[in-house]
């Protein structure tokens, strides 16, 4: 089997993208790559547009390589990748909405992010005036005797993000779930294009608030790669510390919320306390409960004091004292297990096909963790495991989180023990020429891809941030098929996909 580098060896032009290459390909090679994606040779890691171009990021899991293939689409068309590889379909629909470039041969031509409410069509492309009132969205049909539809959202009963779910049900059984997303689309990519680094970093930190540390690291690392500079070692290690705190806090929130969706409030109450303790430690150490805007291009903006370090060690001790009893309670409560075991199972084949990252993919047996497989600093020097389970049900996704909390605690131990001293930030300036950089960072939810092109002056020309949810949302539709409507909330919570990160 050829490696990704070999597959792209014939490409015409190479661009100085770091640390992974970007090559301009012909239509034929683009089509070949799409077919190879369909054949399972590569994993799709991103598909996005810019004026005059479409880009496709490919991941070669076997050889641990990443490459970006770019195709000029001067005639506003490009061969559909989705025609060969279903995970590309929504990304192509987004490109069509934002840039007006049509994927030729695409299996689904419906709009995705554009709900007909923007003043212009193709706001990042030709900026044509809107067409007036849009036709009602054509949900996919489910036909049969006694089928009925249940529309849910975009305003939900809980305190959650906006999205629409259309259930076709036969009695209690879900025959088809179709998601309609895009409600949280804020136009981040347009706002970030042309922005100075500081503003761009603030926008990147708010792509998905629960992953603000991971997004800041992804953006910063892409910028630093582009400029060929490295953040000081102490900053890199403290970034990892914050990333693991973020992971733990989110996992506590999720584990509790999943149990709460099974009406088991006790675990929810206790994990809520643990989550709050993590956030308070973050506030005390870094000045922000979610550690927003702390990681930035060039390093980090707040240093950890010896008192802060002691605080985090106390936090770890507290978690280690309290968490095992909650895990035991989860494991020994039959009524709770009754709701989670076997519910919403996701098959490994689908997780692989979609390149589904994070705890969702790993709970179904897809062993991928950017911290291990693309060992960026400081994870290359740390000892940890990326746990993998096979069942792929709600229970497996709970257990994956439990195991990951343990691993993150171990990681934080190591980080605190070996934390380098020294500077925490270096100055950032333009390179005097355009530069491009890529980063793949393991957020709590999965791998975040960041691609950035800086102008000669160091301002951001273009930036694309791909949330892990792009390759997880479609799988929720698959996992819920055949389940009962009442199991949707617990399934949805166990996936915990991001709306804001996906809708961008």
């Amino acid at each position, binding site marked *: 089997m050829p490696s990704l580098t070999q597959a792209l060896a014939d490409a015409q032009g190479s661009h100085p993208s770091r640390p992974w290459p970007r090559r301009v390909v012909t239509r034929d090679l683009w089509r070949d790559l799409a077919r190879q994606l369909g054949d399972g040779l590569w994993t799709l890691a991103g598909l996005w547009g810019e004026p005059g171009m479409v880009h496709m990021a490919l991941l070669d899991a076997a050889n641990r390589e990443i490459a970006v293939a770019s195709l000029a689409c001067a005639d506003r068309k490009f061969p559909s990748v989705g025609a060969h590889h279903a995970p590309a379909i929504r990304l192509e629909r987004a490109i069509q909405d934002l840039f007006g470039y049509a994927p030729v041969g695409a299996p689904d031509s419906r709009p995705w992010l554009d709900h007909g409410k923007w003043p*212009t069509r193709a706001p990042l492309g030709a900026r044509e005036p809107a067409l007036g009132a849009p036709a009602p969205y054509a949900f996919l049909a489910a036909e049969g005797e006694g089928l009925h539809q249940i529309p849910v959202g975009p*305003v939900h*009963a809980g*305190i959650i993000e906006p999205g629409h779910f259309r259930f076709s049900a036969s009695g209690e059984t879900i025959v088809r779930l179709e998601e309609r997303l895009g409600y949280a689309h804020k136009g981040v990519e347009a*706002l970030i294009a042309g922005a100075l680094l500081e503003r761009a970093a603030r926008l990147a930190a708010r792509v998905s608030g629960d992953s603000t540390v991971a997004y800041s690291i992804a953006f910063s690392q892409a910028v630093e790669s582009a400029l060929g500079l490295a953040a000081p070692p102490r900053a890199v290690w403290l970034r990892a510390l914050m990333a693991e705190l973020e992971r733990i806090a989110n996992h506590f929130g999720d584990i509790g919320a999943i149990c709460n969706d099974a009406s088991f409030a006790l675990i929810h109450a206790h994990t*809520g306390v643990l*989550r*709050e303790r993590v956030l308070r430690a973050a506030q005390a150490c870094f000045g922000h409960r979610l550690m927003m805007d702390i990681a930035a291009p060039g390093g980090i903006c707040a240093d950890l004091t010896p008192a802060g370090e002691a605080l985090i060690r106390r936090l770890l001790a507290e978690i280690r004292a309290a968490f095992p009893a*909650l895990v035991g309670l989860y494991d020994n409560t039959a009524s709770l297990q009754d709701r989670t075991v076997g519910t919403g199972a996701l098959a490994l084949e689908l997780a692989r096909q979609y390149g589904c990252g994070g705890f969702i993919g790993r709970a179904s047996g897809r062993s991928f963790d950017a911290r291990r497989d693309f060992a960026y600093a400081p994870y290359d020097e740390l000892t940890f495991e990326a746990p993998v389970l096979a069942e792929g049900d709600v229970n497996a996704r709970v257990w994956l989180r439990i195991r990951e909390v343990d691993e993150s605690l171990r990681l934080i131990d190591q980080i605190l023990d070996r934390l380098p001293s020294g500077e925490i930030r270096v100055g950032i300036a333009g390179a005097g020429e355009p530069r491009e950089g890529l980063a793949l960072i393991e957020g709590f939810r999965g791998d975040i891809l960041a691609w950035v092109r800086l102008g000669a002056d160091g301002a951001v020309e273009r930036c694309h941030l791909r949330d892990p949810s792009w390759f997880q949302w479609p799988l929720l539709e698959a996992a819920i098929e055949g389940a009962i409507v009442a199991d949707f909330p617990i399934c949805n919570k166990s996936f915990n996909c991001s709306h804001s990160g996906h809708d961008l």
Partner: protein
Amino acid sequence: MRKILFQTLARAPLTEPAPDPDDPELAGLAAEIKSAAQARLGRSLAIRHVDAGSCNACELEIHALSNAFYDIERFGLKFVASPRHADVLLVTGPVTRNMQEALRRTYDATPAPKWVVAAGACALDGGLYAGSYACLGGVAAAIPVDLHIRGCPPTPATFLKGLLALMTKSA
């Protein structure tokens, strides 16, 4: 489970005293709407949250209001599942154009008397997203706003101050 419950009973509660609404601007705003709110609703508010395109950070902190430290329900503040049960709409996000209609319909479905609290930097004026083709730029561009809670995101304590000011702060 019994052991965890007994341990919880033996410990002092984690819940902390209520914060004072010390922000003068917040207090002023709250004073304006306070008398009407208290006359009609007493000391209880039913809150319906609407995410109008936030980054989800505000939602995380709104969730935190229900944890043992803040325990929002002890103040008579309760999150409800439908706008039809609500006195207050708590709106986050810069109001994306894709959410404008849903927000308006939620507002219309809330029975009068009702109050709108916009929370977070982007709910005030669009914040970082001001000027985007996809955003209206703040909650007030979509529905009338009575009170704004600052922060990116507001901390749970700030949320609590704002909501308590709406309920109890006298002029």
